[in-house]
């Protein structure tokens, strides 16, 4: 089996930045990912990425892709890592399509939307159930929809959907919406938005596509007819495949300030780690750090 210098798992801001650094270091490396752009690709408006006063998530993802293309980087996409472990000094990576071997690895697999875990959710995924209001919102024009969640990303979705949908229901587990006050205010004045506080989704139902949702509030059930269900209840790290590495209580891979994980030669970067803040620019910086750490690890090991 070919032994790469480095394998990078993930193609979001952290993974792409690591790849650009690896290309400039002329490492023999490979990127394995499910997409290019990661969470940046489905972010809305970005106004805090240095050098861009304003750019949309999709546009920034395209810029990342273009930057990577300059170096002709080898990318396996889409391919999903299922296990990563050490065999002697080498790192072995198993994916849904094959097996790889490298002297070092960077895990930058990011986070994914937290599932609601109710009956009907997985059955109707992309058949009315969606986790990306930015991408899929326009498809639900002129249809009644429901957003699950009460935080900033949920209310972002609500405000966007209220412009194109006759009625938008918001289902929020807690007593009041938890988003920033400005967002809550903006939502409360919208005439076609109905907020259901202290409420849970019990089930999502339909035939070929979603036709409704059963809500539970104060022990009582309510049936609401909607064709779209947008789930915006936060994110969870894509770290299940890396269960041999130490993680914190949120399943984030624990790294030190040089991006070392609990196994030598395996580094991690970005939102999948316990790094203090989850921001695109921080993920990029962490990806750069992880690649530089991997490069000096290769030198130290005299490989």
């Amino acid at each position: 089996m070919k032994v790469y210098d480095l394998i990078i798992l993930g193609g979001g801001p952290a993974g792409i930045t690591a790849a650009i650094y690896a290309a400039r270091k002329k490492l023999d490396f490979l990127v394995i990912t499910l997409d290019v752009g990661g969470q940046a690709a489905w972010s809305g408006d970005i106004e805090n990425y240095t050098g861009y006063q304003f750019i949309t998530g999709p546009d920034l993802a395209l810029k990342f892709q273009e930057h990577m293309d300059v170096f002709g980087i080898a990318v396996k996409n889409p391919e999903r890592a299922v296990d990563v472990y050490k065999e002697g000094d080498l790192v072995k990576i198993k994916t849904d399509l094959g097996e790889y071997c490298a002297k070092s690895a960077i895990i930058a697999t990011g986070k994914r939307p937290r599932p609601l875990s109710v009956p009907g959710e997985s059955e109707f995924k992309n058949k009315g159930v969606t986790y990306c209001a930015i991408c899929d919102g326009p498809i639900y024009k002129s249809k009644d929809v429901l957003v699950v969640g009460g935080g900033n990303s949920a209310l972002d979705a609500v405000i966007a959907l209220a412009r194109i949908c006759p009625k938008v229901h918001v289902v929020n587990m807690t007593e009041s919406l938890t988003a920033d006050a400005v967002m809550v205010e903006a939502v409360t004045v919208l005439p076609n938005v109905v907020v259901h506080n202290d409420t849970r989704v019990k089930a999502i139902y339909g035939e070929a596509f979603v036709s409704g949702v059963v809500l539970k509030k104060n022990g009582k059930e309510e049936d609401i007819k909607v064709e779209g269900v947008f789930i915006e209840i936060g994110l969870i790290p894509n770290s299940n495949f890396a269960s041999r590495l130490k993680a914190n209580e949120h399943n984030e891979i624990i790294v030190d300030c040089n991006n070392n994980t609990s196994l030598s030669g395996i580094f991690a970067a970005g939102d999948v780690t316990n790094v203090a803040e989850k921001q695109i620019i921080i993920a990029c910086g962490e990806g750069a750090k992880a690649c530089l750490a991997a490069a000096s690890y290769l030198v130290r090991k005299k490989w």
Partner: protein
Amino acid sequence: MNIKIYSTQTCPYCHMAKDYLKAKNIPFVNVDVATDAQGLEEMRKVSGQMGVPVIVIDNEVIVGFNKPKIDSLISK
């Protein structure tokens, strides 16, 4: 070869898929399902779902921007 891409303006992978074909000089028909209700209905029928992009190459349906699958169909 007939290629149709069902897409929206806001979906990043739709843009990537279209740019990919453009870079290869492969012509395709774009259907914006956010504005074209009939196109949306057509997409639901051929793919059985509502996620974009849906790429139809002759009679093969690809859901999502799956580069290896696109490559294998356009190289036929």
